[in-house]
């Protein structure tokens, strides 16, 4: 089983991003997904910069994958997607069906926002070049097991194993809205919230995290404690989604558990304390996403 690091979903400064990937290069992660997947306005890191970061990570022995945008509306966004899909250096993660079209049969990965909910979809995509898929975050381990049974040859399975869950995308920017700003004149407010802005329900349940046009869970999904089960299900890759703080410690914890150097349940409990709000794992157990099996907190 390998360990991957998903794309950074937040708007960090260029310096923070470069420094982050310097650390990642030295970390025990096997695969690194790179690129802006949320908002095309966050263009402080250009395509050539991403390719340079990719080269440095590749030199450090990492497998590099370039990720495409999730919600594409403008022609300029399609243009960037074409550049990524035409890059002949690194594998591509398609986060929209448009990118699958552009891959024209070359190998690609589907990210969590491409709906691969059943074996027939998996088989069809394998015919047009799918070499790895990320299991959709709202589905359960039972569905995963069923799909593993009929997985086409040569297709690897990746699970979103740790991070705030990607839940929705909009044309509207909610970070700008919370600041009474229009999206066209957003002042790059999301840059001030490197883990997103927490949204609470009226009973003070910390519920969601607003990340520009994306809505994430406030709670951090974590299935590290299920490591044995994940192994027996034949998961090939576990994905960690970056947070502003402690991501390297999270990678370390997963790596140690995978190497048998630490007990998964103990490590998972330790990680719970590093999360911005707290843990959740409901989706994996066929429950509401916000539920957590250990805390047993679902109302």
């Amino acid at each position, binding site marked *: 089983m390998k360990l991957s690091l998903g794309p950074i979903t937040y708007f960090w400064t260029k310096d923070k991003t470069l420094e982050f990937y310097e650390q990642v290069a030295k970390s025990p992660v096997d695969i690194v997904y790179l690129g802006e997947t949320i908002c095309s306005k966050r263009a402080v890191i250009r395509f050539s910069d991403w390719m340079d970061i990719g080269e440095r990570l590749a030199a450090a022995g990492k497998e590099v994958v370039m990720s495409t945008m999730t919600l594409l509306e403008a022609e300029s966004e399609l243009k960037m997607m074409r550049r990524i899909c035409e890059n002949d250096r690194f594998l591509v993660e398609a986060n929209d069906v448009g990118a*699958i079209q552009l891959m024209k049969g070359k190998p690609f990965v589907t990210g969590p926002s491409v709906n691969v909910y*059943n074996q027939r979809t998996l088989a069809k995509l394998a015919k047009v070049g799918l070499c790895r898929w990320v299991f959709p975050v709202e589905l359960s381990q039972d569905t995963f097991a069923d799909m593993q049974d009929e997985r086409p040859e040569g297709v690897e399975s990746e699970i979103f194993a740790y991070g705030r869950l990607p839940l929705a995308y909009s044309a509207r920017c909610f970070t700008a809205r919370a600041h009474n700003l229009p999206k066209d004149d957003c002042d790059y407010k999301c840059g001030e919230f490197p883990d997103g802005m927490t949204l609470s329900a009226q009973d003070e349940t910390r519920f969601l995290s607003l990340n520009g046009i994306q809505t994430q869970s406030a709670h951090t999904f974590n299935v590290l404690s299920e490591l044995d089960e994940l192994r027996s299900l034949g998961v090939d890759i576990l994905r960690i989604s970056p947070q502003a703080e402690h991501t390297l410690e999270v990678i370390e914890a997963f790596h140690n558990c995978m190497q048998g150097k630490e007990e998964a349940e103990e490590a998972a409990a330790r990680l719970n304390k590093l999360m911005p709000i707290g843990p959740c794992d409901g989706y994996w157990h066929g429950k509401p996403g916000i539920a957590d099996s250990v805390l047993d907190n679902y109302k």
Partner: protein
Amino acid sequence: MELVCPAGNLPSLKAAVDNGANAVYCGFRDDTNARHFAGLNFSPEKMAEGVQYAHDRGARAFLALNTFPQPDGWGRWQNAVDRAAEMGFDALIAADIGVLDYACNRWPDLNLHLSVQGSATNYEAIRFFHENFGITRVVVPRVLSLPQVKHVVENSPVSIEVFGFGSLCVMVEGRCLLSSYATGESPNTFGACSPASAVEWRETDKGLETRLGGILIETVEKGENAGYPTICKARFEVGGNTFHAIEEPTSLNTMEMLPELQKAGIAAVKIEGRQRSPVYVKQVTRVWRAALDACAKDPENFKPKSEWLAELAKVSEGSQTTFGAYHRPWQ
């Protein structure tokens, strides 16, 4: 432009056809469609009757089969495709790649539309569905501005249908998991946003409290209008303020834009609301029929009549309407 109207049951289907719908869309009584609510939708017998009723009066009938099957339920979707083909539907509106793949291989003559749940916001995605499954139409998500819709039309190999009126999804359809995050069930997996079994209403001193999956998402004071509780239209606390952090409880109305939509080459306008009553379907269909006819006749001088807007306002969710994303400042 074709007027495509919702039919949650046979009386609604008849109301739509009788009041000028060019096409009606409906679903079977299960989770194979995105309006899976108790008491709604069609048994196979009623469905056959409905298709016949529409065809006898020159209207087309579309079947919404627009949720995402998982392996243990696959057979239900496959059966629904087979039944739709056998019943003589004029098009199947599907979203899932597996369902489309099955439909185009098993029933090569079956006309396929990509549902809004298929989440195709750009022409490259549309080309994928066209080249792989031969779809002939796409319903585009309600996140695009009018210039963006025009750009899609210019580059799309198939005709484009847009939402004209009804409930407004703020999030791009087919990729919104907010409902399942709170309740375990989403439009993708279950065919409903905020499934009724997860909604709880409670009268308190503060007003009417609404919980979804046990989470308090709204408190409505006496005299305020309480709409159907969806997460995206509730009030939350962000940065110390409590407000509609995602969207106000408004609904979409693009009638004023009809001449522009027509000029852009839009093939069809869709009315949302299979979960609404036959009276809603009748009123909305009648008004939109009149508007489309007036616009086709004289687009230059088209202006929605005040009585049409008044009629529509009566049935709008939250009693406010918006152009939504079609109007750029909304974004």
